[in-house]
């Protein structure tokens, strides 16, 4: 088990190999479909003018994301009425939906780790090499277990996206994950896809 502290330095990123179990500690942010689309359209490609609190949130996010981790997660949150937020269930969501956006977000904000499930594709793998960064695979569905590693909900941005899609700023201690895409262009997902494809072709030929 390798312990990683956020912000994560380049040396620690460079040392990570595919298959390494890691325990992550520090402040990270949840972001999924709505947040990625919003970040890319408003601040990276600038195809959509900033509205409402967009610019203020952008300024707040920049230092938080710099050297940090994005977690693909739409949590179950208690305390919504009192704003004494607490994560009740917080496993990863499927990451591949962010493939069109992820690389640009990593480069723009200097995001060092993307955490989710199911893996990502070639664009994100290339960004992992450039930034450098890694993709960390959390255990899909292990929501109560992972929620216990969220020691504090520091705040929330874009709650108008809805609870699952909002950007929750959380402090985690020993958040468990496995490196499945590293900064040297190795992807466990590409490897498993290729191997299973060969088996499928053999099975389909009979």
């Amino acid at each position, binding site marked *: 088990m390798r312990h990683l502290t956020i912000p994560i330095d380049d040396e620690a990123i460079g040392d990570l190999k595919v*298959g390494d*179990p890691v325990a992550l500690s520090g402040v990270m942010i949840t972001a999924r479909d*709505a947040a990625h689309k919003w970040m890319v359209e408003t601040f990276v490609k600038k195809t959509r003018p900033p509205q409402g609190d967009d610019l203020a949130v952008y300024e707040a996010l920049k230092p938080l994301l710099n050297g940090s981790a994005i977690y693909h*997660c*739409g*949590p*179950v*949150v*208690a305390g919504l009425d009192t704003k004494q937020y607490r994560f*009740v*269930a*917080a*496993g990863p*969501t*499927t990451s*591949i939906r962010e493939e069109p956006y992820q690389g640009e977000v990593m480069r723009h904000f200097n995001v060092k780790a993307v955490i989710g*499930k*199911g*893996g990502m594709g070639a664009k994100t793998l290339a960004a992992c090499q450039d930034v450098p960064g890694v993709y960390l*695979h959390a*255990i*899909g*569905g*292990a*929501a*109560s*277990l*992972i*929620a*216990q590693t969220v020691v504090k909900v520091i705040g929330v941005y874009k709650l108008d*996206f*809805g*609870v*699952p*899609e909002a950007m929750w700023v959380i402090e985690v201690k020993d958040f*468990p994950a*496995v490196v*499945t895409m590293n900064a040297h262009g190795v992807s*466990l*997902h590409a*490897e*498993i*896809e290729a*191997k*299973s*494809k060969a*088996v*499928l072709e053999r*099975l*389909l030929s009979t």
Partner: protein
Amino acid sequence: MRDLTEALVELIRRTSTDLPADVEESLVGAREREEAGSAAQSALSSILENVALSRRNSTPICQDTGTPIFYVHHPEGWSTRRLREQIRAAVAQATARSYLRPNAVDALTDKNSGNNLGDDAFPTVHFEEVEGDALVIDLMLKGGGCENVGAQYSLPNGELGAGRDLKGVRKAVLDAAHKAQGQGCAPGILGVAVGGDRGSSYYASKEVLLRKMDDANPDPKLAEMEQQLVDEANQLGIGPMGFGGQTTVLGVKMTGMHRLPASFFVSVSYMCWAHRHRRMIVRGDDVTYE
């Protein structure tokens, strides 16, 4: 008619937080088959630890509590309109109590309703009048990650070399299992419907998932095919979470339907390992849960 709202909240709590024993047992079996110290075995250990923790603390097994799908079998005399109202009230209450995540998003405005109540299909409620005196309500929570990797094939399919027979069905199901990779939270359970139209076929492919994990299909041909598909899907080596390993699927459940002469659909509903479903039985004043 009595008010079942509280009893329905309890059904939702149990479904979201307490994985059925047969599903848990098959996960235990899968862990035993994986290589000691592998990422696959470690994933299954975390999964089982999470199952126990969720049951103990009454917290959702998975944060994606999915589309709540209710299958209501009621004797004559029950008002389906009032049952629907009570189901909706229970869903909103269970959301406020954090047993469910607010999941109903208006597809045109992107607005999340905040209480899991959307249009008439959210939550989904199916009604069927039956003989006897017991009201039986099954609830399935179907998460989005696994729903997204479901697939429907129209046979013949030239690319797969799949014709309009069970051999062709086999190829379609294996292709679906491969395409899903680990995305649907493997090891999953595949619900397969052969026939129907596009709508009825997908419907049946979900309903068949209510069967017990270790039961045998009453149709011997399908029973044999279910076992064959489990074996072959597991040869793909995708494994738990797509980490590679022995168990890609925990089970395959199949059903046959009637079809139009022109159509031959194979529908595959992928259920994640967190196969959350529970049953509530109302008989007179008694409410029991399975």
